[in-house]
């Protein structure tokens, strides 16, 4: 099983590096984050304080735009393109299970998303070398932030793959994935905007991805409950992708 999954993964992962869209995404991503970091680290909001600058870098509007937008961009092509070009039929009849196809494509998309996010470490390293003597970058805090980013991106990537299984059109798949991710994102902000009920505050606070980052990951704490929440979401989205793709086989 793993061998076939690996071949699907390999094919899709390499395809990313041959696509101009991936480089445009990466360069745009780095430029936007460089812009944010320059703004935050300066005499403006963070006043040169590295901890605050990092916190703002990993929890500002651009950050959330990228968190929501990168996975749909990476996944929109995966299954929709197979169906549009007709290669989905070949996949269906090939000696490979639907689960293996989905898992291989998911792993490729997730790893490439992780690679895109890892590029941000270049900016963090640039900050680290500019710290005054005696002060060191708290890499543990960076590790916690990355644990959060990878956990949430794993979830959004699975959602993106599910959306890609719905449509032949890549743009429709991307918009659908973005809408679902946006819905998940907004559910968490509901309690801050509308609710004063304690139990609602508790419930929506628990599923609020912004709170997860601002209160825990960005301060260097990894709460396994949130990672489990993302893992659960990922498992549900992937199983639904398999179900959706499988259902098309019989049409």
């Amino acid at each position, binding site marked *: 099983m793993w061998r076939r999954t690996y071949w699907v993964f390999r094919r899709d992962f390499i395809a990313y590096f041959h696509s101009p869209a991936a480089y445009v995404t990466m360069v745009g991503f780095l430029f936007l984050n460089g812009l944010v970091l320059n703004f935050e680290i300066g005499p403006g909001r963070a006043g040169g*304080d*590295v901890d605050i600058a990092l916190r703002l870098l990993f929890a500002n509007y651009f950050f959330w735009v990228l968190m929501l937008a990168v996975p749909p961009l990476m996944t929109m092509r995966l299954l929709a393109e197979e169906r549009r070009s007709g290669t989905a039929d070949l996949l269906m009849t090939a000696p490979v299970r639907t689960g293996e196809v989905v898992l291989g494509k998911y792993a490729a998309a997730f790893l490439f998303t992780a690679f895109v996010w890892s590029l941000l470490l*270049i900016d963090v390293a*640039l900050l680290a070398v500019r710290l005054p003597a005696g002060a060191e970058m708290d890499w543990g805090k960076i590790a916690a932030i990355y644990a959060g980013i990878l956990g949430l991106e794993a979830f959004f990537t699975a959602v993106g793959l599910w959306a890609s299984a719905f449509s032949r059109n890549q743009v429709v798949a991307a918009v659908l994935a973005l809408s679902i991710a946006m819905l998940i994102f907004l559910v968490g902000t509901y309690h801050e905007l509308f609710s004063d009920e304690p139990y609602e505050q508790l419930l929506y606070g628990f599923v609020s991805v912004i709170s997860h980052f601002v209160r825990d990951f960005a301060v260097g*704490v990894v709460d396994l409950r949130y990672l489990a929440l993302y893992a659960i979401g990922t*498992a549900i989205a992937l199983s639904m992708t398999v*179900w959706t793709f499988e259902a098309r086989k019989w049409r």
Partner: protein
Amino acid sequence: MAIRRFLTWCCGATNVLLIVYGALVTGAILYHHPVRFDLTAKALRTLSDDTKTCLAGLKEPVRVIVTFGEADPAKRLVAGRVFQEAQDFLREYTLASPKIEVIDVINVYQRQEAWQQARERFNLTDANRVTFIAGARQQDVRLEDMASVKYGRPGSPPLLESMHVERAFTAALRRLQGAPCKAYLLANDGIQGQTGPDPANAGPGGLSAFVAELRANNYDVGILDLAREGKVPADCEVLLAAGLIGPLPAEIPAVEAYLEAGGKLFLAINPQYSPRGLEFLEDWGVAVLPAWIVMEHQLAGTKIQTEHALATELNELHPIMRKFEKDRFRMQVTYARPLGGAKGLHGESVPIAGVKAGNIWGERKAGTADRPWVCDANDYPSAPDGLSVARVLETESESGAVARIAVFGTWTFLGNERLHEFDHASVLHNTLWWLIGREEQAGVRDPEVVVRNISFDPEGKVRRTLAWAMLALVPGCGVLAGVVILFVRRK
């Protein structure tokens, strides 16, 4: 075909339902059993033992309200940073104890109505503080309590140096609980005047921070002129003698009478200046050995720099020390004399502090400007296993009253300059808790959060370099990589 399609659909739906069900059960279990990992370099988000003990001892629910808002733009940055840190720590407190509840966080400029309501409801006088409320009692923690801020010229922005939010919160919680402990600080001959270890002296060597630290931790500190009063007040729970150079002959009987009645004495003595104090100690079984651990250059003939001064590791034989982990505890003294074992009259003493010769000293007596004066155990044949800088005694008088004494062979660690360095404040608190019989409170204090700022040069060259690298160089590398790969692929 239709049946097969339907069966496949049912199978897929069942799979999804099973996964959703399993996920919900797992989620519910995890929600009630949170597991958190603090990945920060110095475990800054892990509450200290001290705080955990304090939280475990909470008898009633404590509500917390945070009010902040700074009109002065120059100070807004610092206030924002400190109150963000305060909220982060409150989250850890609420997760650690169900008795802590944060009822509101109010930015007074954005939520003026809520601020007015909170003012009336909780009788708040001013914003920019964290208020802990238990029943009718409440304790405020101000910005100055949570952070060390350096104020420059009027109009220039203040500089945030470090934060000790957890220390301030735990002290407030401790103040909130129970009746304060009555402590008397010995004055008159027990102090060295306005330039020395005097509670009124706010200079580097003064004890104003020592008194403030005690008051912040639920001690009701009174100043006692024993030569004039003639006896220790009956409500004294612990008698403090820090930087003792006396005592006067008239004071010794009063202290001894207090101890005979089961008193508790905290004594930080500078043996160089207090020969009478040493005689008093010998009567109570603490022998001060003839050699110095560390001497100032006038005495030793070698120069010792403060930053290179003795750093001791204390062993864990006593309740005062037992909460310390070896790698977390450090103490710095510039001036200490080894305190020998107690014998005879007043019971056994327990060594609580040891200077492991091999751990600290590199070479013997190699005092240079860049290397401290050194010694080894051979210099002190009477203490081959380490030299104590402090001792404690517990004695039972004929009336059955149990007196406790803790003696430190230095007082410099209590001075304004050093009290909040290393683990000095922890040593002080743990010692006092042991003296007053609350050793279960002994713990380790939180580390300070040191603020790390990028050092920008005045001309802004560093900032420009960073800007170029982040905005052009790094994305440019991405463009280059893309062009190269596409070119190779096309070829």
